[in-house]
């Protein structure tokens, strides 16, 4: 896998995912409320890149992850892997090119199966290799994530959260996928354990030349880990660009607020800011216009309430904000 000009890429093109709102009575003819989980999202992650998706609850980041694996069907738009639409792809082929690690290490492993079986299951499902080769590869994979032969016959409950997440990573990587989606893989873990898992992920990405989409609400983490970052709010990407640049000079007002609200023990000098007001609106009835206008300190006028800003490229970054509507020169100093 040389760093060719066109590396294999996973991309979402104008992807939207909508669900029927839960708990609605199902008259066949009645119009049920719709959750607009993901709205018109486009991203492209080449192999080898660590791409971050940031956002608070309800922003659609987990749905985006599931849509990338075709675990939920998009309502509009499409996902392509290496140029091929996943919608028509045979399930096993898709699964062997992109895999996922889930948030909750306590529930993402079947408590009734042994670790060896859990990890080997992928190979069994895909009908790869004979028993001996499977066993060999399972052990090799476990060793790669820092576990060993003595763990093969154990059940998940005998492991700590960090170890379980390693098992989950092993299960995902044994199929040798090109891409790995990680949905908040460390949010249930303690700091010290998180550090171990993060280091493991970094190392595996390097070793296996993986394209990673890392989803998290923790900006400190994403700032540390990722190459590029997309910030989502109410199903839409509001800002996207190289991580370093975003942290150095966040453009979208929401990004600004989010970074400011993220506590850090090292910013002693930081003047405590007045926290952003209000609550996150519902994604069943999102506000008209810019989704963030209800809480935005930089609101520039009625246009924010009525017109949805487009995602525009601005100084190497894509930003969805009316502040940056005009030519770059006019909008001048970013906040």
């Amino acid at each position: 896998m040389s760093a060719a000009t066109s590396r294999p890429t996973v991309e979402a093109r104008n992807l939207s995912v909508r669900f029927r709102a839960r708990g609605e009575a199902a008259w066949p003819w009645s119009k049920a409320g719709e959750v607009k989980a993901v709205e018109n999202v486009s991203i492209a992650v080449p192999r080898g890149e660590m791409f971050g998706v940031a956002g608070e609850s309800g922003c659609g980041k987990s749905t985006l992850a599931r849509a990338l694996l075709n675990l939920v069907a998009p309502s509009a738009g499409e996902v392509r892997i290496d140029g091929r639409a996943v919608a028509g792809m045979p399930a096993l082929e898709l699964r062997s090119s992109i895999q996922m690690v889930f948030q909750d290490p306590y529930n993402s492993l079947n408590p009734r199966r042994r670790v060896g079986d859990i990890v080997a299951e992928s190979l069994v499902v895909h009908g790869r290799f004979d028993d001996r080769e499977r066993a060999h590869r399972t052990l090799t994979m476990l060793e790669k994530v820092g576990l060993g032969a003595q763990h093969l016959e154990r059940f998940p409950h005998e492991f700590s959260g960090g170890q379980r997440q390693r098992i989950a990573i092993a299960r995902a990587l044994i199929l040798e996928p090109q891409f790995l989606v990680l949905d908040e893989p460390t949010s249930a873990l303690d700091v010290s354990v998180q550090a171990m898992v993060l280091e493991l992920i970094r190392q595996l990405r390097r070793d296996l030349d993986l394209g990673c989409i890392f989803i998290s609400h923790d900006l400190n983490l994403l700032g540390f880990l990722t190459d590029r970052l997309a910030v989502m709010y109410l199903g839409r990407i509001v800002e996207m660009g190289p991580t370093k640049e975003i942290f150095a000079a966040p453009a979208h007002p929401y990004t600004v607020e989010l970074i400011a609200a993220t506590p850090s023990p090292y910013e002693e000098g930081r003047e405590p800011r007045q926290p952003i007001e209000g609550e996150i609106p519902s994604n069943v009835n999102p506000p008209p216009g810019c989704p963030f206008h209800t809480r935005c300190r930089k609101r520039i006028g009625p246009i924010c309430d009525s017109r949805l800003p487009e995602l525009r490229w601005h100084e190497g970054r894509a930003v969805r904000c009316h502040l940056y509507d005009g030519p770059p020169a006019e909008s001048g100093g970013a906040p």
Partner: protein
Amino acid sequence: MSAATLPPAGSVLGALKLLAERPSAMFGLAVIASLVVVALLAPWIAPYAADDFTEGVLEPPSWAHLFGIDQIGRDLFSRVILGTRISLRIGLLAVGISLAFGVTLGVLAGYFGGWVDAAIMRVMDVVMALPYVLLAVLIATALGPSLENGIIAIGIVRIPRFARVARAATLATVELPYVEAARCIGASHPRIIAKEILPNILGPLIVYGTLSLGDAILAAAVLSFLGLGAQPPTPEWGALLYEAQKYLTTAAYLSLFPGLFVFVTVLSFNLLGDGLRDMLDPKSRR
């Protein structure tokens, strides 16, 4: 704390150890185990055959006839012992029927959801819309009074309850990430149901099945009472009770012993079921 406390799969010994901390459940298990032994060895334990006639009739318990002699001269002890096999079989078969159909339907409904769920559960509603004793009576009458048909009737009326338990458990399990993880690696629906869902919903089903076993034996007794279950001279416990009922006020021992066996059996299944439920429910384990 939550899932972590579930006993490991496959470890029967571990489960027994956990159960051993609940004396009442262990009592239940012990009684059931001895009943099973009695059922298996019944023809060797029972001093007489089910329809051996002695000279006397309606004689109270004595050393020669531990439970007395019944209204037409049969040794009641032998009949109760021989009945163990029949009554346990009723419970197992009836619950087996409920379990097999109920779990299949419930898992399908819970796993696929949507119209499959709606269709299956509406049908279950139809069965549930009647008090189940009534329904069992109706089915047993329609099929004709016999032991087999009684078992089928009792089995059928409990299908919806098992379906509901299985569906609820499936719904809870389907939401869990490991099921999504299985989809993620490309496992097919049958494989997911077999490998990920079924093993994890067995807990509540085993509990419910255990509790139902007692109920099924009791329901068989009610059917027999109404003349719809096992037919005399089959020494089913319910049928024994039914026959003895005529002598309840004159020869109470005829009712007492079969009744005691029914009671202790149902009690034991309930104690065991409760114990299993406690054991499997992490919240009650403190």
